């Protein structure tokens, strides 16, 4: 039976955590840029 890897809890958590951390940092950089412009 082929199981969709998207349903593996730890796998989904790891990929989600990676994106949350990266996007969180991007938000920090964008906030810094906006503060500079303002």
């Amino acid at each position, binding site marked *: 039976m082929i199981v969709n*890897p998207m349903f593996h809890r730890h796998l989904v958590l*790891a990929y989600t955590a*990676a994106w949350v951390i990266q996007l969180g940092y991007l938000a920090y950089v964008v906030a810094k840029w906006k503060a500079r412009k303002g």
Partner: protein
Amino acid sequence: MKLLRWLWVVVTLGLLAQAFHVAMFVVPPDQTQGEIQRIFYYHIGSWCGMSVFFAINLGASIVYLVYRNRNTQRAMKADALAVAAAEMGVVFCTVGLVTGSLWARPVWGIWWTWDERLTSTLVLYLIYVAYLLLRRFAAGPQMQTLAAVMAIFGYADVPIVYMSTRWWRTQHPAPVFFGGPNAGLDPSMFPAVWWNLVAWLAWGALIVTFRYGIAYRDQLAEQNAALRALEVTGS
């Protein structure tokens, strides 16, 4: 220039989407670990990103120390690059630690172990967090010099992290690249590794470029403010 920047954003997002697709749906699952092994593709992408950006931080710190009394503009640019690269390196290091822990739980049965690879990585993470805290909270003209010196000493931990699985017997497996016989991946898994390496490095480079611009403009503003203060004091 603006068009080129947007093109870079689009290409990076395309690379990330392709890397995700290949890692999740194209390469086969691991024979022993099954689907959970796919964490590896984000895990290795993060570690390679961390190594590259900490190396850039090291190079920029050395350039800063060399030029700080000779060419102020060049030194300021190097310092701005150093802080941008260090932040990105810490972000990648955080992702590496978190994904590693989430992978360790189902595979090793534990979230964390104090083996040499994990411990030296945590020490590296703390060194660079301390570097960023120093930059954030220390004041005065010596701060950048101190930070640059700290970056050089901090980078000494990077080869220890890399070599730890060869020097000591660790819970963490042998290196995938240049790990010797019986180490490494099945060739069928390499497309996911390469796509993720390229995609995450492109992502890191994009954000570092953006952050560098902000840091450099901040430094110019600080320099101008200092010059104005001198003029006011002089007159």
